């Protein structure tokens, strides 16, 4: 097996080159491989509840340990994969910040799921671990194909997890919408790969900025489109609304802390490329801030807690996208991780209440915080952090982004501030609802919504409560990443200039958010009806893209049968007809001619037989006649 073994397997499995020694590199590989293998096994073998839960938590805990190790040791792995692109993973400053946070949130969400997921635990935890593996790969990928690999596997697990309760068609449709919408964006990554090859830069993410124009612009635009799709930014945002059909634990991990966040993460990762394509970067910044504002308004309009949180996730990621556009990598990264903790916390709270009460409708959740105080207080801290109230986390991280935006354009800053105020509004609304219910809500009407989605258990167990406490600590404290002295260290670790947080900006932002929060507590929130169904973007996509495609498909299918296939059938029939005609011709003309010749010959034969009488005197007479004729001929012809 010389060639096979040496060339293929040894290159694929040999200990990779690493800057941090083989053990750390191995840890990085295991970080990706272990959850994938355990996850696939759990999904396929369908073990019992207890073993599924145990295996899942143990794996997630090990993965957390490995990611911390990798964050400290900063290993790199690179083995040949396909032409021009290695299977490359590296833990740099950005990955070292994000990977442990995502691993920690994963573990906490899985702990929550132990108490919350009541059926098919093997499939659930298996898919979640597969997802965790693909996130770790996304965070550390150094080349486009590897990034795309992890990226689309995230999308596939998201599809399967949204449709976790596959008996209900609407959940499967929601998963399909999510997968197709994000994959439409992913086409940008394929395009970017082609552009990178054409532009001569190779497929390593860090080399893309070396591509020739105009390929560099194409590559940047392609990556931005893919990132906007995953991050549920405008105009792709509608898929995230549908994704809320998945279990709450899935929403907490995939649709806030990890997968959606990876859209923003990718833009931070390729910020050097954006820096060399100012047009694309500016467009990115504006798309981000537009999403932050518009989807913030969408969040204000919602009547369902998970829908509100989903819209707010897209809006908050708008700040990360803005950060990438204006080059505030450290601020964007800090916002990303702080938001991950905050939003995972709020989604878990929503999930705990949904399981207990059977509803996630806001008016039915009046006063839930008092009923289950641990989750209630954690969620309150999360909501206040989301509102951007000092000194909680998102206040500082958001300002780090806005400060960089202000240097770019004052309008960008103003729009960002507006988005910040709006987030104070919708987050404040959560606080109001969960403590005392919104003004004017009808208690009898709200009670009618109980158990409308599923029969509630009226219980919030310890498995569900404990993770929210830990996440609350993150929601409160992670803002330190954007404040001195840590901010400077983070910036240098990311290879960025120290982004000065402006004291004035912090004060202005904090005051505005606080004012918004207080206003919401005092007066009813404006709830623009036009934003309730997420601006009708899904209907628009259906009307302009999906339905025409389906109609075209149906027309082409009929065309295929009626034209292409019919043409072949016609040729066949024409051949048969030609055959039949030839057969008739053969019978009536060719064969008839032969028969006619035979008949004439037969008739001649009959005539020739007539003289053969057998009478000797007649033969003499015939001889005389013949001789006479011969004589006459001889005499006349001469």
């Amino acid at each position: 097996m010389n060639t096979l073994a040496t060339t293929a397997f040894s290159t694929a499995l040999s200990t990779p080159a690493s800057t941090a020694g083989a053990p750390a590199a191995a840890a990085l590989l295991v970080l990706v491989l272990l959850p994938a293998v355990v996850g696939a096994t759990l999904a396929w073998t369908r073990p019992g509840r207890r073993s599924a839960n145990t295996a899942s938590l143990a794996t997630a805990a090990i993965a957390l340990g490995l990611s911390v190790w990798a964050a400290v040791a900063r290993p790199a792995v690179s083995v040949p994969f396909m032409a021009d692109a290695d299977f490359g993973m590296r833990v740099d400053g950005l990955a070292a910040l994000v990977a442990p946070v995502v691993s920690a949130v994963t573990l906490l969400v899985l702990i929550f799921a132990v108490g919350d997921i009541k059926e098919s635990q093997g499939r659930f935890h298996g898919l979640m671990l597969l997802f965790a593996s693909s996130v770790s790969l996304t965070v550390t990928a150094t080349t486009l194909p590897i990034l795309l690999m992890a990226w689309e596997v995230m999308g596939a697990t998201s599809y399967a997890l949204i449709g976790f309760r596959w008996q209900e068609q609407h959940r499967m449709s929601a998963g399909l919408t999510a997968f197709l919408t994000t994959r439409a964006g992913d086409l940008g990554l394929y395009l970017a790969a082609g552009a990178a090859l054409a532009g001569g830069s190779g497929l390593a993410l860090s080399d893309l900025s070396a591509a020739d124009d105009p390929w560099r612009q194409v590559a940047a635009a392609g990556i931005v489109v893919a990132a906007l799709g995953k991050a549920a930014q405008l105009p792709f945002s509608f898929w995230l609304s549908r994704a809320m059909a998945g279990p709450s634990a899935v929403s907490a991990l995939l649709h806030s802390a990890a997968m959606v966040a990876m859209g923003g993460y990718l833009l931070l990762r390729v910020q050097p490329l954006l820096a060399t394509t100012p047009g694309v970067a500016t467009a990115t910044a504006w798309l981000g801030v537009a999403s932050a504002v518009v989807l913030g308004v969408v969040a204000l309009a919602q009547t369902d807690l998970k829908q509100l949180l989903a819209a707010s996730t897209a809006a908050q990621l708008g700040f990360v996208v803005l950060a990438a556009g204006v080059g505030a990598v450290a601020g964007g990264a800090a916002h990303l991780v702080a938001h991950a903790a905050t939003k995972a916390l709020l989604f878990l709270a929503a999930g705990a209440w949904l399981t207990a009460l059977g509803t996630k409708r806001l008016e039915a959740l009046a006063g839930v915080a008092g009923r289950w105080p641990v989750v209630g207080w954690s969620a309150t801290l999360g909501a206040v952090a989301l509102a951007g109230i000092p000194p909680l986390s998102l206040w500082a991280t958001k300002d780090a982004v806005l400060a960089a935006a202000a240097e770019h354009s004052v309008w960008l800053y103003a729009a960002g501030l507006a988005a910040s105020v709006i987030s104070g509004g919708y987050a404040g609304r959560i606080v109001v609802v969960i403590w005392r219910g919104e003004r004017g809500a009808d208690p009898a009407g709200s009670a009618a919504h109980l158990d409308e989605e599923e029969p509630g258990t009226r219980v919030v167990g310890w498995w569900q409560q404990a993770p929210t406490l830990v996440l609350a600590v993150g929601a409160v404290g992670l803002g330190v990443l954007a404040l001195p002295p840590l901010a400077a260290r983070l910036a240098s670790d990311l290879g960025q200039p120290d982004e000065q947080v402006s004291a004035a900006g912090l004060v202005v932002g904090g005051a505005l958010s606080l004012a918004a929060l207080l206003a919401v507590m005092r007066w009813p929130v404006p709830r623009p009806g036009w934003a309730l169904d997420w601006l009708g973007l899904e209907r628009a996509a259906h009307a302009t893209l999906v339905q025409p495609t389906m109609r075209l498909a149906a027309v082409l299918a009929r065309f295929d049968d009626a034209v292409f296939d019919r043409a072949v059938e016609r040729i066949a029939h024409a051949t048969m007809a030609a055959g039949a005609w030839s057969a008739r011709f053969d019978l009536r003309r060719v064969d008839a001619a032969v028969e006619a010749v035979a008949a004439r010959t037969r008739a001649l034969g009959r005539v020739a037989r007539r003289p053969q009488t057998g009478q000797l005197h007649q033969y003499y007479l015939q001889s005389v006649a013949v001789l006479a004729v011969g004589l006459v001929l001889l005499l006349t012809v001469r």
Partner: protein
Amino acid sequence: MLSLIVFLPLAAAVVLLTLPRLSDAAARWAWVVAASVDLALVLVAWARYNAPAPGQLALEEQTRWIPGVDSRYHLGVDGLSLPLVVMTAVLFLACAVYALRERNRPRLQAVLFLFLQSVSLGLFTSADLILFFVFFDLSIVGMYFVIAGWGHGDAARSALKFFLYTFLGSLALLAGFIGLYVGADPHTFDILQLTAHPPLADHPVTGALVLGAILLGLAVKTPTVPFHTWLPPAHTDAPAIGSAILAGVLLKMGTYGFVRIGMPLLPDAWRAWAWVIVAVGVVSVLYGALVALAQDNLKRMIAYTSVNHMGYIVLAVGVAGVIAPDTAQARSVAVTGAVTQMVSHGLVTGALFLLAGVMQDRAGTYDMRNYGGLAAPAPRMAWLFAVGAFASLGLPALSGFIAEFQVFTGSIAAAPVTAVALLGILITAALFLRALQRIFTGDTIGASRGFTDLHPSETWSVGLLLVLSLVIGLLPRTLLYLIEPAGRAAITLVGR
């Protein structure tokens, strides 16, 4: 070595046919053993394989055959053909395992498939045009009997349509081969000699016509739009393993012909035809995907996705002839992707057709409207179908991605307009997920009720194919180290 690999299945077939009083069970297992031994031999050949120089073949065998026209019995493999040889041996083994539950004349079926295996392996190892043609036509004959003898529905008609259509295509191919022979100096049918001295280099019009005939013949077999309409009825009425071989192996004979014969033997004409080939590829990608999207019959749907998948290959080999400065590397990536796609499509579509066969076996219908919630009674089938569907729609970590990523990056870099074909992977995703949803999810209704989940022979055969797809998806070097040098060589040859 190669002769043994090619003719071992045929010898086994003869033994099976002549042994008197062989029980059905023994015949079924004998087939599995023969296919396993042949696969083992193929792996040994792989181990002994060393990449040949460009324009050469490894593990060559040749002897006089028809000296009057300088046609030789000449076998050999390189990076284009060895992957297909391995894939063929694997797929036939999977079919043998799947057929362990066959009740309808299993001995005769085993004989027929062993014959087909010899023919298929022979085609991929042929280094002589006449030999290639003989195997090409025998494959049509064998598949005709498979569909007509073991099919269902309107099998006789579909089989006849398949036979006549592809046979007609093979005549065009033969005309092209004769053109090559006449144009070569000295006259020969040997592919290596023709590669070394491309015929008709000084006669561009004749060369283009000869390539046109060859392309027509291969386009029918592949099939590309608009020569594809024999495919859906043939698949719909063929038995499961017949469909798997038809899609997995027989279609590759067309695409393999492009890279083995069309590109290296008529490089000038290939470059002249390049944009036509690219256009046919792009149309096949989009048209195949859209028509598949509109189907209600699962097998017809998968058949049309084959048109789509073959379109990627045609697109990539077309791009190979679009010569522009600094694109040689991109074009070789595209050709590498095309060959990878041949292997990947064989594994994945083979698996999907085997799973579709389970539906015919249990419920007698492929109509997706008759199913719903099948995941409840058949969870294993649901998982395997889901993996197969995702592999077919090009999900990374599975083989389809490795193929399509290279096809697209190479093609877009060399001919940016081909980016429009990217829509194909979006539509394919839509149609497979829709099928998954319609058949497997929701309330368990109609034909899904009382559906028996996969038997071990079905799980193992399908699982084997999908695991290999996963291996290629995760460790693509195991395959690409074979294909990449051949892809580069093909680009050099077409650039002459």
